[in-house]
């Protein structure tokens, strides 16, 4: 269906099919028009995936013709955001700038755009923001601190809001002009940057696509050779079986082994060629992004207590005793599940065995022997709980 073609973003021969041609003078050039070729505004979408807005209830507010009367009805939006049908636009504006039949703003034919959003308010906002973004394209790097960047964003938002809601339009326009004049160099620089970025992105995409295609072709070729080889193999076996007097089973087994060897060779060479390169590339990008975290050596907690470490040595092979018997026999490690280490129990016992072994018992009724003796050096500074 011809009326469908513009929905899919394809070329429509403007006024070609219907009688609107009759209104135009024969000298009017026949333009191959698409939404992107004649109309400047609207949502530009080179991929053609964005559909023009379309509704069964469309009716031209100027000539009141609707989809029922004219199935090919196409409504376009003026720069003052009023809709009218193509035939009305042709009728009113072909002869040059003319006032809008709804709001009397002077309009030109080329200033009509196809509609993308149902709500014209959204349409307007998108168009304005697109325009603003082209000029106010400073980045975070262009500012010394976050504060000034935020101020700038605020100012941009202000301007956008004013334009969208028609507040102080002339003054706002003046502000834009002033800004543009002041930042011309930066604006072009940023534009170039954005273009470069888009180009890089495109190149990358292109490269990846190319690689995919190559991989597919490679695979196809592999398959082809494999099939050919198999065919050859079969033929060979049949020939040999015909001519030689050797054992048939042996012959078949030998040729099978040969095939297997060759195919494994092929697989290894392929993985070396194709996947290896890919992995190397991936690793390169990974290593660039991953930030290395330094592993600081562990410094054990220091305290001011002596716990008889030099008085015993834990026997390397472990001990043979009644209490640890079940733990030592536990091969599956069920008992060690919670982090229990029998060595710690042993060490504690050994520490008890040597703790204060040389302490002499107190004698007599020495008053200092009773009560608390605290060395001043230990008060406050020690961490170990008295046990």
């Amino acid at each position: 269906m011809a009326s469908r073609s513009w929905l899919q973003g394809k070329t429509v021969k403007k006024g070609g099919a219907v009688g609107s041609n009759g209104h135009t003078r024969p000298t009017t050039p026949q333009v191959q028009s698409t939404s992107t070729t004649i109309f400047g505004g609207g949502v530009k979408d080179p991929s053609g995936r964005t559909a023009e807005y379309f509704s069964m209830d469309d009716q031209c507010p100027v000539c009141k013709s609707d989809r029922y009367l004219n199935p090919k009805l196409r409504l376009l939006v003026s720069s003052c955001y009023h809709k009218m049908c193509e035939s009305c636009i042709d009728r009113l504006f072909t002869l040059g700038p003319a006032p809008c039949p709804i709001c009397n703003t002077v309009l030109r034919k080329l200033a009509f755009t196809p509609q993308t959003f149902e709500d014209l308010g959204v349409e307007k906002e998108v168009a304005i923001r697109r325009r603003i973004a082209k000029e106010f394209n400073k980045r975070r790097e262009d500012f010394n601190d976050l504060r000034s960047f935020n101020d700038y964003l605020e100012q941009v938002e202000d301007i956008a809001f004013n334009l969208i809601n028609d507040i102080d339009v002339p003054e706002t326009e003046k502000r834009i002009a002033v800004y543009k004049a002041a930042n011309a160099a930066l604006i072009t620089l940023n534009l170039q940057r954005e273009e470069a970025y888009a180009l890089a992105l495109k190149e990358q995409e292109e490269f990846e696509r190319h690689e995919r295609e190559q991989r597919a072709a490679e695979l196809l070729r592999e398959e082809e050779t494999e099939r050919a080889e198999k065919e050859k193999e079969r033929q060979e076996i049949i020939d040999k079986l015909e001519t030689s007097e050797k054992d048939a089973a042996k012959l078949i087994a030998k040729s099978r082994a040969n095939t297997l060897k060759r195919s494994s060779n092929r697989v290894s060479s392929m993985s070396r060629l194709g996947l290896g390169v890919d992995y190397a590339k991936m690793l390169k990008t990974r290593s660039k992004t991953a930030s290395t975290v330094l592993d600081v050596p562990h410094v054990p907690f220091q305290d001011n207590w002596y716990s008889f470490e030099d008085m015993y040595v834990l026997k390397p092979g472990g001990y043979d005793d009644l209490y640890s018997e079940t733990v030592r026999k536990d091969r599956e490690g069920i008992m060690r599940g919670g982090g229990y280490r029998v060595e710690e129990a042993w060490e504690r016992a050994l520490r008890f065995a040597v703790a204060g072994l040389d302490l002499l018992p107190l004698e007599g009724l020495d008053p200092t022997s009773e009560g608390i003796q605290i060395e001043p050096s230990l008060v406050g500074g020690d961490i170990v709980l008295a046990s």
Partner: protein
Amino acid sequence: MSSASPPATKKSVYEGSTQFKNWRYSPEKLAHVRSTLNQAAVAVIKRTFEAYEPGSSANVLFLTADEEHLLVKHYIATITQLCSLFRFPEEVEATAISYFKRFYLKNTVMDWHPKNVMLTTLFLATKTTNNPISLETYTTHIKSTTASDVLDLEFLVAQSLGFEFSVWHAHRALWGVWLDFQSLPDTAADWPQAHRDAYETALGYVRASRLTDVEFIFTPSQIALAAVSLTLPEESYKWLKSKYPSYNAVETTVNKIKTIIQSLSRPPDVESVREVDRRLRLCKNPEKIVGSKAYLARKAEQEKKAEEKRNRKAVEAGEDDPFGFELGRSTIVDDDDDDDDDDN
């Protein structure tokens, strides 16, 4: 001393323990503490007797410090029996006995009967050594015991212990000594298997030592070494030599412990205990016997004091400023001055 002595700047962890700081006595000091405690208790109880029935204390034979200690010793043996009934680990038994003995270094038998204190210390020990048991199971397995018998004294016991629940035990030191014997040079591979019985015997000596006062005088490692040297003298000698090239001082200490264990570690004779207990019934602090005149009087007095305190608080609270006006009132406030100058 030896090369093994600690660096001068550091203090050993054992010397940082409350056991070392607060529960280490000389034998003389121990006797002194017990006798002064006993004298003070007797004096107080006598006064109470006289206050309610003048002349009634004249023919009461109060317990001596030794008799008190005899009773305590008897109930230590009871703790052991209870522990084997409940199959409590060694740790619980040792801890309960330590608590029990420590309690009676701060309190007298005539105030708190050891039967109840024993139940409380054992229950407390199950909790502090992380072997908890429900109070219900605990009381139902002991004849004619209620929950209040166990819990009433719990805070008092904890307070008497100074809330120092951690104890360094000799049986753990014994285990360590036993393990370290295996590190001695030229120890046969089957040594541990062959000497299991010796270990059990040594553990028996450690258990016996709990009936004596050694834990207040010596360190757990010394007690363990004494116990093990009673069964394996040769290994003990070698081990001690490996730890301290000049081991004479330690050996003397260990020999002292050996003598104490061998002579004093038998539970007291039941007849004499019964005799002491019978007399205890007559000389108990009447203020602590529920239902007695003195008990009621004391209760009333406590009530009165509490009432007074409440009233005083109420009066204080009733005054216009809850933060106290006394400071401002006691000084002469000059109207011309700033607030800053109030205090001159």
